[in-house]
């Protein structure tokens, strides 16, 4: 792995995104728009929005980042540019980290927008600090990116990559505690939710929202999310093959 190559990758991915206004709009505006939709839906019962608003800040960014990343890297494979990169001095981790870094920058902007709108426009009532909420929202966006990079290694076409969304993200969405608190899930499902990354993403956000700062439980959930990010990237590098049939 070489920092020069990783940074060149990240800069290139950002240069491509700059040309693709619709994707940038999708990445930055969509989570905020979806949270606003939920706020409107529960307009008559603001208590409900305060309960689910936090988890939504984890769920929407990670799902949207997942979709965009998994297709973006697949496009690289089907266009032949991945073959070229793999005949050049590019480590597999350079490739993955380049994408992760570029999308992490997007995640920062995305989190800033969705957190500001939630707190200041939609009056989401949280007890924790706004910056910690922001940090966790960024982590959750990066989690979506890392999982998307890993998933794209298992998809052979863009068609298959899109199908990874329902296969990988929806079960996590159902079990992460957004629809039903995790401790009220049947025992087996609770056990399953304990090993799913999105559960910790939601726990971290909910923790901060409830007023448990990083020193008080939310920090360890955030660390678990960070560990999942590293794990997904390392696993992604291990499954990405230079030589193919």
């Amino acid at each position, binding site marked *: 792995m070489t920092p020069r190559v990783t940074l060149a990758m990240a800069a290139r991915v950002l240069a491509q995104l700059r040309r693709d206004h619709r994707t940038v709009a999708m990445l930055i505006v969509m989570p905020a728009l979806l949270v606003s939709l939920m706020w409107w839906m529960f307009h008559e019962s603001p208590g409900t929005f305060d309960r689910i608003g936090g988890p939504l800040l984890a769920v929407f960014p990670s799902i949207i980042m997942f979709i965009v990343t998994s297709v973006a890297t697949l496009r690289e494979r089907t266009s032949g540019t991945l*073959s070229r990169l793999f*005949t050049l*001095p590019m480590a597999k981790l350079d490739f993955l980290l380049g994408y992760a870094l570029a999308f992490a920058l997007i995640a920062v902007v995305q989190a800033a927008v969705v957190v500001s709108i939630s707190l200041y426009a939609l009056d989401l009532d949280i007890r924790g600090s706004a910056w910690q909420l922001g940090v966790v929202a960024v982590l959750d966006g990066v989690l979506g990116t890392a999982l998307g990079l890993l998933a794209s290694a298992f998809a052979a076409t863009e068609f298959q990559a899109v199908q990874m969304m329902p296969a990988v993200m929806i079960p996590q969405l159902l079990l992460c505690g957004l629809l039903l608190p995790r401790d009220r899930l049947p025992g087996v499902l609770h056990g399953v939710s304990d090993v799913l990354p999105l559960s910790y993403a939601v726990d971290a956000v909910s923790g901060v929202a409830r007023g448990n700062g990083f020193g008080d439980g939310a920090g360890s959930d955030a660390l678990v999310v960070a560990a999942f990010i590293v794990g997904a990237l390392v696993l992604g590098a291990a499954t990405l093959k230079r*030589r193919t049939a």
Partner: protein
Amino acid sequence: MMKNAVTCRDVVVVRGDREVLHGVGFGLATGSVTGLLGPSGCGKTTLIRAIVGLQAKVTGTVEVLGLPAGSPKLRDRIGYVTQEPSVYGDLTVRENLRFFAAVLGISSGDVDRVIDAVDLRSHADDRVDRLSGGQRSRASLAAALLGNPELLVLDEPTVGLDPVLRRDLWELFHRLADNGATLLVSSHVMDEAVRCDRLLLMREGELLADDTPDGLLASVGTSDIEQAFLTLIDRKAGAR
């Protein structure tokens, strides 16, 4: 004796449950331009991918610049052009080349040199997906020229180009070879054969001939390469 830039011995490649290369062997002399000719589907791209280290399930020996094919140390010494242009359509020619130069760790001054080499100066700041097919494949070729690689492996680089441009590119290939680079250029167009120092004729995963153009014509007793190819196929069928 000049050392070979590429040496293949008994190369067998299996894809899925089909064997697509059945024991191919040849050498590429350093500083030569070799044409890899054969019909579409005969295994040219598979052989090329084995040489640049992207093909799985390769047995036999593939030695490139004295190292086993695919060695990490080869990655800044080989230029590879895939059959479909492998550049980013949403970036300009120059942005593409700057990126590949950064990956190679060479100065972006080289970018202008390769743009001129493929005659894309007037389109350097156009997005690649707005270019014609021929311009796009030249952009892809330009990326492979960055950093003056010792070995250039080009998979059908002249498809769809007009005759003048094709002639210019072949002149470029020979200039590169004169400067010491070794080139392997695949094509399914037989009339490009005369432009090569040496020819590998391939069909159904086997080499039918490995000779100079003149040597091939003399040994088969025909006056053009296409006819020589057909005669070799007939002879082989007769020998069975």
